[in-house]
């Protein structure tokens, strides 16, 4: 019984780590621009696809992974420069629709350039599962967890300790004021897209050995990431982590103890309840109106 519960928890935490990485991307771009970027899932997919494609052509695994993340980061930057920046005077809703368009373009391009079939990557440190008190976890899942935690720590340092990071935060808080004190707001926006694409891609690369990747993998992960970000509070870093883990655990426990038929429904119902009771999310700050 205990081992069963532990298995559900391990499964949930692995899922949750993945959702967290996706949610962090949503939060970061939301912070910098007030926009919800629905191409976030595609950044995850581009990272995984690029890495597996490079790896298949004979590039050593670590290099393929790093290159995959960098390619996704580049794509993120280009998306901001070519699709989002030209519309900076448009309403937020219009920009959100632009990102939906971008997600379709990215999916279509990948489908044409890299094919429709799913691709895989070798596991980073073997496929032999590790047994913990009767439950099992893949070494690859540990990679997802550890790298996910490192990214959260790294982001924390970046926003708290570096000039650029503080600039991003300042822009999030008040774009005009940030501009007045000399923050290059345009750069901050591009940077936030590059970073969130890169973070998503790290998740994509890490998960590919477990789940494989195809041109349409991003949609589901993007959607779950959005739910996690909303659940935790859009724009909040700790909220993204809490929301992601919470979502993963709820899914696994629902599948395990209630019925897998409700697995995808329960989280959405929960989001509904949370948003009715606490519109700012679990860890979000209440928006205050300035007078």
């Amino acid at each position, binding site marked *: 019984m205990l081992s069963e519960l532990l*298995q559900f928890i391990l*499964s949930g935490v692995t899922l949750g780590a993945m959702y967290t990485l996706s949610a962090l991307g949503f939060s970061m771009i939301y912070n910098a621009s007030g926009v919800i970027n629905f191409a976030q899932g595609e950044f995850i997919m581009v990272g995984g696809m690029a890495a597996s494609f490079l790896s298949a052509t004979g590039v050593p695994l670590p290099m393929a992974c790093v290159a995959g993340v960098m390619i996704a980061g580049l794509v993120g930057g280009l998306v901001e420069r070519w699709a989002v920046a030209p519309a900076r005077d448009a309403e937020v809703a219009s920009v959100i629709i632009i990102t939906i368009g971008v997600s379709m373009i990215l999916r279509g391009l990948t*489908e044409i350039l890299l094919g429709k079939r799913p691709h895989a990557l070798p596991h980073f440190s073997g496929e032999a599962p590790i047994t913990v008190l009767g439950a*099992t976890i893949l070494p690859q899942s540990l990679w997802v967890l550890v790298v996910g935690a490192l990214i959260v720590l790294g982001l924390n340092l970046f926003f708290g300790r570096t000039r650029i990071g503080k600039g991003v935060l300042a822009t999030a808080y008040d774009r005009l004021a940030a501009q007045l004190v000399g923050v290059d707001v345009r750069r901050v926006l591009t940077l936030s897209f590059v970073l969130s694409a890169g973070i998503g891609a790290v998740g994509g690369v890490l998960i590919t050995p477990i789940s*494989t990747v195809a041109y*349409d993998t991003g949609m589901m992960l993007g959607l779950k990431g959005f739910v996690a970000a909303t659940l935790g509070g859009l724009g909040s870093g700790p909220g993204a982590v809490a929301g992601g883990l919470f979502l993963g655990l709820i899914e696994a426990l629902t599948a395990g103890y209630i019925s897998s038929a409700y697995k995808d429904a329960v989280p959405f119902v929960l989001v509904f309840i949370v948003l009715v009771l606490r519109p700012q999310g679990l860890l979000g700050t209440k928006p205050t109106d300035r007078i």
Partner: protein
Amino acid sequence: MRLFNTMMGIACALGLGALAATALAADPVKVGSVLSLTGGASSLGDPELKTLEMMVEQTNKAGGLLGRPVALVHYDDGSEPGKANVLVKRLIEDDKVDMLIGGTTTGASMAMYPLIERAQIPFISLAGALVIVEPVKHWMFKAAHHDRMVGQRVMLDMKAKGYKTIAMLSDTSGFGQSARKEMQNVAQKVGITIAVDETFNPKDTDVTAQLAKIKNTPNVQALFVVTFGQGAVVVTKNVAQLGIDLPHYQTSGVATREYIRLSGPAAEGVRLPAPVLMVAAELPDSDPQKQLSIDYVEEYEARYKTDVSSFGAYARDAWFIWTNAVKQAKSFDKVKIREFIENTAGLPGTSGIINMTPQDHLGLDVSGLKIVTIKNGNFVIAN
């Protein structure tokens, strides 16, 4: 200037001549096809189109059909049945096709059929569900084994092995859910109890929770996974991760080399019903399905440098059902061709020996599906 005029004159004459020549040689027979080349079912539609293009070329190289060349007109429905309906209208009214092959998905085939029936054009669907041929639709035929047959084949094998209580894990896609219902019916008929009936989203990256539940259910003797594509790979890897040693069955949806390649050693020992295509080399030489299956695989893989799948093979069989009927009818009269398709008898294909009747527009039985197992990274016929 005069030179220019003369040149123009010659050019025009040549152009007209060329036009006349093509008009004489051409007037091709048009085969229309609506396939899912993008979207969710694109991994099915892609090999179907590749196969049809290969078949057109082969037929034309061999002198065409009754002396006329064959041309393929195809559209992509983006895996949306609603679009298929619009596109088939274009095929019928603008392209004026003589024959229809396609409908990658059941939804698309069913959405197209009312228009096809009105236009009275023979139509061979490549989709899976039983509803396509039951009840029989006058102008619609089917080239692929349906869900129920796949279920029967698996359940009969389970029964022969003495498994009475099983666990089933199906995906939440249209295919998974319609197949799941069929499997429940079949299980009831053959007397197998489905003790655990779990589902998962085909895009899930982890299904260990469902599998742990199955693992901890007492008395379960076998596991039956109903899905295809990426979902099957994730489930297979998770089964290995949890160390579940139940006999592991999958559907014919995973009868691709890609599944073995992506799942790696985790796929060893998986049992599934597969079209003969995958194990053709093992058949006795006297088997009429052997040579044609091997030929198809070799030609396809040499031409496209990619693995064959059973979906492309359905398109191949559909093509032969049609050309066979045309040759027998010795005309392109649609009513006659429909009749000859309906009376296809003893035609060997990659999915089985096809014997259609007015009551049976599929013409295949379960014997066309072999139970195979994966051994050393290859499909082999299971004993």
